[in-house]
């Protein structure tokens, strides 16, 4: 129990942000028309590629001769940035097609 209290007080800021972010996410997405579900899913998917920042940090923080970290970090950056660039590009491509004609 003490451990849990300690954990909460150590990470209070993160816990606040976590909870608020959940609500923001739900509120932002709620009531979106079905027309946009596919682009939205693909756009959100691109956003989850934000994990690439972690992979970049792995590479920045590893020793130049730590081949294990550098190799995994490298693959992580490649895969993460594929998710980001590919995701945003394909979302843009889809949205480009939504036109209203007069």
């Amino acid at each position, binding site marked *: 129990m003490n451990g849990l209290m300690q954990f909460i007080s150590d990470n209070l800021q993160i816990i606040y942000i976590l909870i608020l972010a959940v609500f923001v996410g739900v509120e932002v997405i709620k009531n979106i028309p079905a027309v946009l579900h596919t682009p939205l899913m693909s756009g959100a998917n691109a*956003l*989850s590629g934000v994990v690439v920042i972690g992979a970049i940090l792995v590479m920045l923080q590893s020793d130049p001769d730590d081949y294990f970290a550098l190799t995994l970090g490298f693959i992580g950056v490649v*895969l993460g940035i594929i998710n980001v660039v590919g995701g945003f590009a394909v979302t843009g491509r889809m949205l480009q*097609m939504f036109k209203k004609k007069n």
Partner: protein
Amino acid sequence: MSISLSIIYLIATIAFILGLKKLGHPATAKNGNLIAASGMAIAIAATIFIHDLQIPISIYILIGLALLTGSAIGGWMAVKVKMTKMPELVSLFNGFGGASAALIGLVEFSKNVGDKMQATTIVSGIIIGAITFSGSLIAWGKLNGSIKSVVTIPRYNTINNIFILAIIAFAVFTVSNGASDQAIIFGLLGAGLVYGILFVLPIGGADMPVVISLLNSLTGIAAAITGILYSNMVMLVGGILVGSAGIILTIAMCKGMNRTLGAVIFGAFGGTDSTAGTDKRLGSIKKTNPSDAAIMMNYANSVIIVPGYGLAVAQAQHVIHELEELLTEKGVDVKYAIHPVAGRMPGHMNVLLAESNVDYSLLVEMEDINSHFKNTDVVLVVGANDVVNPAAHNDPSSPIYGMPILDAENAKHIIVNKRTMNAGYAGIENELFYNSKTVMLFGDAKDALTSLVSELKNM
């Protein structure tokens, strides 16, 4: 962390929220995507350049190389992909994000031995990342048809659930004992990968959109966990946004199919157990030909087109748009009725029709169009099946019973274009085809619609 980096991360976070918000409205969606992408670009650039570490130039070159390679591959895939293959692509990209999270965890584990908070985030990042990676690859394989089997061994779900509980128990044990052995972490990675496969493999065709959305949400959570590890706010908030957005979308989809999330995950649906009710005699069907079908539509006041995935498979989106324009010219009121799960993911049909320049205001959602069917002269069902199956209303033994459908059966006349009498994606017979108001126009959607168009032109 330097204050300038924090400020840039803050701006990026705001860009994510704003971008996601704008993505939700047809008029602003394009801007939304750009805003979110710009946020991501500045966050990535700032991560690389703003820090007080002494980084040898060789590492910068490596990072640059990785970014260029990945951007080229991702960009190329995004440009090349056919719109019908969109669900596969989203699934694949999602798997890559998950893999990235798992790899980060592998590296960080050895650096953070002894710190339980860090170990918890690392271990959960690895497991969730691994599950999303292998799960997404299986979903990708199932969607593009390279993995066909629907595995249903007895007690499959029980075995699966015990397996994931065992993984969690082992993870908790690892963290609480402060284990530092690399072999353990590779074991957890492997277990996560295996679970991802087992998790998605038994889930059948019709439920795949739900799975993709769920996996998408999980990748967001993996990213957020990695954000906690680095106390990196932009990763934390970005990941959580995706996580909660994914859950909302998943629930919206489940509602569209009248399925609970639990039933999707724990009850293998679609394909095997859905033959119930097929043995009963449904009467006979009536065939028609393009010329008769064209006459019916030509003299109708109102036509509703119900497009399904079969339309896209036959690459008939452009012909159907031509048909719609032709009928509109002749004074017929034409609309499209879009089921929330038409296509292979929610909203997929809208994308496919938008690709062939259909005005999106003609695409009417299910709730808005259902009451109009009874005043409609002709409904043209092209390549759709389960979404117009009346069994959803009146056959409690049907696996799709309770699913909201398009009430095409209420129209005065129904024309159904199908290649053969084979059952639909969920493998269920459709009594609409045997309705006395229904005529069947057999043939490939593109060929059939092309003949319809040329018949109409001659009238």
